[in-house]
């Protein structure tokens, strides 16, 4: 499993976090937690099972943590293999389970290699897109 690479936006966000740590508390990194962020939102998620097996359906639970002043109205989840230029053969279904909490079912990585999750966080100001890499063995 490969964690997301730190981006310039991520480093900038770290600075913002120092000013408002509580806003991102639910999206902190931890064991088994995968994480991504933009300048406006952070997102942390866990998959079930924790290690994704090629060819088997999995689900995930995500927490979306907006920067102060940003309101989250929805979340879309998808994944693709950038090197192969294809996505999944299955369409995940996402439902909100609480404020900023979402559950997605019906994901499957059908090939080994580098996959990339794409989370589209919907806000009144537009879409915040977060990518998180994952290598399926």
């Amino acid at each position, binding site marked *: 499993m490969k964690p997301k690479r730190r981006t310039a936006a991520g480093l900038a966000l770290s600075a913002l976090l120092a000013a408002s740590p509580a806003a991102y508390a639910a999206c902190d990194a931890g064991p088994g937690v995968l994480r991504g962020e933009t300048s406006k939102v952070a997102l942390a998620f866990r998959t079930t099972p924790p290690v994704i097996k090629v060819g088997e*359906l999995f689900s995930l639970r995500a927490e979306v943590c907006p920067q102060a002043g940003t309101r989250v109205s929805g979340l879309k989840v998808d994944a693709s293999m950038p090197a192969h230029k294809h996505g999944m053969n299955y369409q995940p279904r996402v439902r909100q389970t609480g404020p900023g909490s979402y559950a997605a079912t019906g994901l499957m990585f059908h090939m080994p290699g580098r996959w990339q999750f794409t989370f589209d966080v919907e806000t009144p100001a537009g879409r915040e897109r977060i990518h998180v890499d994952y290598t399926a063995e």
Partner: protein
Amino acid sequence: MRRTAALIAAALIATGAAAQQHAGLSPLAASPEELRNIQRHGPWPQPVPRDPSNRVSGKAEAIALGRALFFDPRLSPRADLSCASCHLPERTLTDGRERAQGGGPAKPRLDRNTPGLWNVAQGRWFGWDGGSDSLWSFTPRPILHPDEMGASPAHVARLLRDDANLACRYAQAFGRAVPPEADAETALVDAAKALAAYLETLVSGKSAFDEFREALARGDAAAAARYPADARRGLSLFAGKGLCSVCHFGPNFSNGEFHNIGMPHMVEPGRVDPGRHGGIRRVRADKYNRLGAYSDDATRTSGSRTLHLTENHGNYGQFKVPSLRNVALTAPYMHDGRLATLREVVRHYSELDIDRLHQDGDALLKPLRLSDAESEDLVAFLRTLTSRGFPDLNPVTGPCKPQGQR
């Protein structure tokens, strides 16, 4: 942890063996990444999971009924075609034809190649287009199709009811008498479930490749060295630069999904085989699918894949990735059998015409540009996937004895 230790052991052996390498690649020389890729193709055989949508999956009495039906030509109203007419035991459960031959006086040429049935229960989609989401729900297709057996549910119900031996086996398998005429469809579905229970038992034995893989895993240099050198080089191509193992993934050498590999999909002038595109529509509309009323999975959980299927234009011309186990015995190849030999298959990938791929085809596919020697090595590897043994396919099951009778 144990797997990691085995990989480390194999890597250490590989390091030592590399020093002794002579002409060609030593059977033990491999990078940790290659060793990991090789280990993914086992262990073998894999356990056959019970199908929750089929309540008689794994049940001995249903297996006996399914076996009797598999070899019984009376399943077709003309009594001219059994499952075993196309899935010939002496031909590794295929028929050796490019495209299957139907039943009846016309014996029409069907659209697709007859796939082998060994290890069929390892799949998740059935048929070249994956138009069925369980083994049992695929089975009514050849039984009912007018170009194949051409039966009706009523015919199948009558056969089960009127033949004392089959009626006895049915009662033992399902714990009740064959349904009446008015419920012939239930009898058909039950016959399909019994056939699936039998098909689940078709598991082929270990191959020379499996023995090599196990030798690597336990660090047995002497046993690993018995693997032919040309096959070993071919395996390196398969799991390495050829990227074959990305799709031919896992113990059954198939990721169970669908890909467009640039095969023409015209069935005849003016008629196209849509492949997976049609399969997705078919499985969604299938009243026998895992989400439907005939599924025995009360939770419908096993239908999750069907529920989450997505369809896009890239599915056009995709066909199922076949297992490569026993591939040397199942010529000809591809969904329409257009490639006669394994050499032709390897040449297809070596000289792949990317213009023939759908514009959204996998970027993974590129011409391999193999030398003649490399092509021969790859074929040599594929030949080592032939099982050393197959379970007995004797169709005779003996007379059914009603329960309580000795």
